[in-house]
C-alpha cells in the first residue's frame, strides 16, 4: 500500500510542486492550507509523513507540530518542517518541538524526495 503524505502550506505555488513530486514518486497525497486544516486532515487522512510549513495563518507549523507531538496516538507520524526561516535558532526550535527533519527553502527537490523516501523506509 502506498504511503500517505500530507502537504501543509498556505502558498499554492509551492504546494503545486510538492504535490506533483510526491505523486510522481507514488505516494498518496493530501493538501492542507493552514494549521487548523492540517490537524483536521491528520485525523481523517491519517498520513505517514507530513511536510509542514512554519509560517501559516491560523496556526503556525510550530503549533501544529506541538499539538501532534502531544497526541500519543500520532507518535508514529513523521514530520518534516519546511520553512523560509533559515536561522539556526529556528532550526533548533523545530527539532526541539519534535520535528523529524527540518528543511530550509529554497531546497533541492531531489534531496527532499530522497529524504522523504529514506524516512519512510526506516
Amino acid at each position: 500500500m502506498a504511503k500517505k503524505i500530507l502537504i501543509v502550506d498556505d502558498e499554492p505555488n509551492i504546494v503545486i510542486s510538492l504535490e506533483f513530486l510526491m505523486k510522481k514518486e507514488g505516494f498518496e497525497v493530501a493538501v492542507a492550507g493552514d494549521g487548523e486544516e492540517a490537524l483536521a486532515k491528520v485525523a481523517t487522512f491519517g498520513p505517514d509523513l507530513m511536510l509542514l510549513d512554519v509560517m501559516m495563518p491560523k496556526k503556525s507549523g510550530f503549533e501544529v507540530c506541538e499539538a501532534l507531538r502531544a497526541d500519543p496516538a500520532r507518535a508514529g507520524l513523521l514530520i518534516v518542517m519546511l520553512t523560509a526561516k533559515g536561522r539556526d535558532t529556528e532550526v533548533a526550535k523545530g527539532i526541539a518541538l519534535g520535528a523529524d527533519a527540518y528543511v530550509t527553502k529554497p531546497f533541492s527537490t531531489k534531496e527532499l524526495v530522497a529524504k522523504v523516501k529514506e524516512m519512510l523506509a526506516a
Partner: protein
Amino acid sequence: MKAKQRFFLAVVVLGLLMTGPFCVTSLLIWLDMQDKERAMLTELLLSRLPIGTMMTVFGFAIGVGVLNWLFKQYVEGLLRMAETLRLMLGANRNFRVNPEGPPEVQQLARAANDLAQQRNALMDDVDAQIAAAKASVEQEKNRLAALMSELAQAVVVCNLDGRILLYNNRARLQFKALAQGPTSASGGALIGLGRSIFSILEKSQVQHAQDVIRQRLASGKTAMANFITTLRGGQLLRVQMVPVLAGGEGGEGMSGYVLTVENITRNIEQEARRDQVLHSLTEGSRSALGNIRAAVTNVIDYPEMEPELRERFLKVVGDEVAAMSQRLDQTMAEFSDSMKTRWPLEDILGIDLVAAAQRRVEDKLGLPTKTEGMDDALWVKADSFSLVFALLYLAGKLQDHYEPRELRFRLSSEGRLAYLDLIWAGPAMSSETFYTWEMDPMQAGGESTPMSLRDVIDRHGGEIWYQREKAAHRAFFRFVLPVATPEAGQEEERVRGSGRPEYYDFDLFGSRDDSIDLDRKLSELTYTVFDTETTGLEPSNGDEIIQIGAARIVNNRILRQEVFNQLVDPEIPLKPESIPIHGISEDMVRGQPNIDIVLPAFHQFCEDTVLIAHNAAFDMRFLQLKEERTGIRFSQPVLDTLLLSAVVHPNQESHKLDVILERLGIVIDKRHNALEDAFATGEVFLKMIPLLEEKGIVTVRQALEAAEKTYFARVKY
C-alpha cells in the same frame, strides 16, 4: 545690651551725685537744728523749692547730655570700631577704620589701621607663598580639566555616591540635547557639579557596573564596565565606566569613576534599518526562491509532463520572479539611505565646507572666489578632506583649460539632497572632457591622490554633473551630497569654542550625600543663590515675576556656568517706572514662557539645595503666591543675606546689597539683572560664612535661628 545698661547706671550715679551731697548735708543740718530754726528753714526752702529743683533738673539734663555724648563717642564709637576691626580681621582685610570722634579714639583708630597695614603686608607675603605652592597643583588640575573639556567624547567623573565632580563641554551639550522642556535651564539643570548622576542614569545600572568593576579589580583584570541605558524619550546611551582608584598605600580601593557617554540612538537606528534591509533581501527571498526552484526542477526533471501542468509550473516561476523584483525595488526605495557606502561621513555645516574650499583654491591656485545664493543653515554629510580636494582639483582643471577670472560657490538644497555648485564663466565644455576629469586620478596644487573625482563622489553616495546656464554665459559643476540633520548642540558648540569653564571640582571626591542636613556646616552644603526681577514691589497686589536668575554654590564656590537665567512673561503690562530699574522691556518678556512653565524648571534646578537670596522674604513671597496655582512648593530652608548681615554686623545702619558689597570689599561690575544680583548675593554669602563662624554660627540651623531673631526678620510682604 551691656553698654546700654552701663549707660543707665552712669545716669543713675550722676543723679545721685547731683542730689546726694545736698540731701545728706541738709539732713545733717536738719538734725542739728532747733524746732524754730527748722520751721524757718522749711519756710525759706519751700518758697525757693521750684528754682532749686529747676536748677537741679537743668544741671542733671546737661549732665545726662554730656554723659550721652561721651557714651556715643567713646563707648559706641569704640564698639563700631571693634566691629570694623573684626571685619578687617575676617572678611575684608583692606577695610580701614574711619578715624572719627574724639582725638583719643582717632589715635586708636590710626594705630589700629597701622597695625592692619603691617598685618596686610605679612599676610600678602604668606599668601604669595601659598599661592605659588597651590599654583602648581592647580596647574596640573587645570591641564587635566582642559584636556577633558576638549575631548570629543562626553566625560563625566563621579564619586562613589554618584555626585558629579567633573564633566566636560561635550557632556553638557549631550545631556542638554536630551532634556526636554521649554526653558533655557530645564535639562541643562540636570548635569552640574555636586549633582547626582542618577537623575540622568539609572542608579541600579550604575551600581551594577560598579560591582562588575570591583569584581574585575579583585580578580586582577582590566577594570572596566560597559552598559547601554535608555533615557526618557527613548534615547540610547552607551556608557563606559572606568574606576578612579583611591591611590595611597591602600591601593586598590575605588574612590569614584569616570563615565564616557555616547549617544548611540542614531547608530542603533541605522543599524536596525540595515538589518531590516538585509533581512528583507535574504529571508524574504527564501520562500519565493524555494517555489521557483521546485517548479523549475519539476519542469526540467519531467519533460514529458502534460502541457497544462507545465504551463502552471511556468506561471509559478513568472509570478514569483515578478514579486521578487517588485520587493527588491521597494526595499531599495525604502532603504536607499541605509544602503549608501559606509565610508564614515561627518556632519558638517555647508558654509564651513565652502569656506575651506575657498581658502584652498585661493591659497593654492591664486584664483579669486566668491559665493552666491548660500544656504547658511544647510548641513551636509561629507568627508570634508576628500571633498575639498575634489573642489580644488576641479578648480585647477578649470584654471588650466579656461582661465576663468574667478570662481563662485553656491549652496542650495532640495529635499534630502544638497547641491554644492562650482560656477565659472566661459565656453561650453564637452562631455568627454568632463568624463576624463571624472575618472583620472586627481592632482592639484602640487598634491596628488590615487582617488578619482568619481571615487570621491561614490564615497559620498552622491552625484556630480556639468550644467550650463546659457542666459548668464556660465557653467557649473553640481555636487549632489546627502543632507545631514545635525545633532542638537552642535551649533552652540561652534559659538562657544574655547575657554575652559568651571566644569570640575575634585574636592568633592570625599564629600558624601547631598541631602540637606540642617546640622551640617554652612561651608559644606550646596546652595542655590537666586534673585528675581518683578513688575513691582507688591506681590499680594498683583505684581509678578519677570525674571529669575540663579546660580549654584558647591563646595564654597559659585558655579558661574551652572546657572538658571530665565525671563518670564508676567501676562500683565510692565510698569513704565520699573523698567529703568530692571532694564527689562515689554518685548523682552512677551513670548517668553510664563511662570507656570518656568517655576517647575526652577524648582528642579534648586532641588536638594538650600536657597539663598538677599531680602529673601520678598522673593519667597512671590514664589509662595504661585504655590496653589502651580502646585510647586519650595520647602527647602532659605537663608537671607540681609538678615545674616544684620546678625554679623548689628551696629551697621544699612544692610542694602550695595552697601554690604562695599563693606565686604566685593567688586561687581554689573548689577540689577537677576543673575548678576544672584552672583553678588552669592559672593556676599561666601564672605559671611567665616564671619558667622566667629559669632559661633556654624550650622545652617544656627544661621536660620540667628536670622530669625534680628529686627529685620519681622518685615512682612
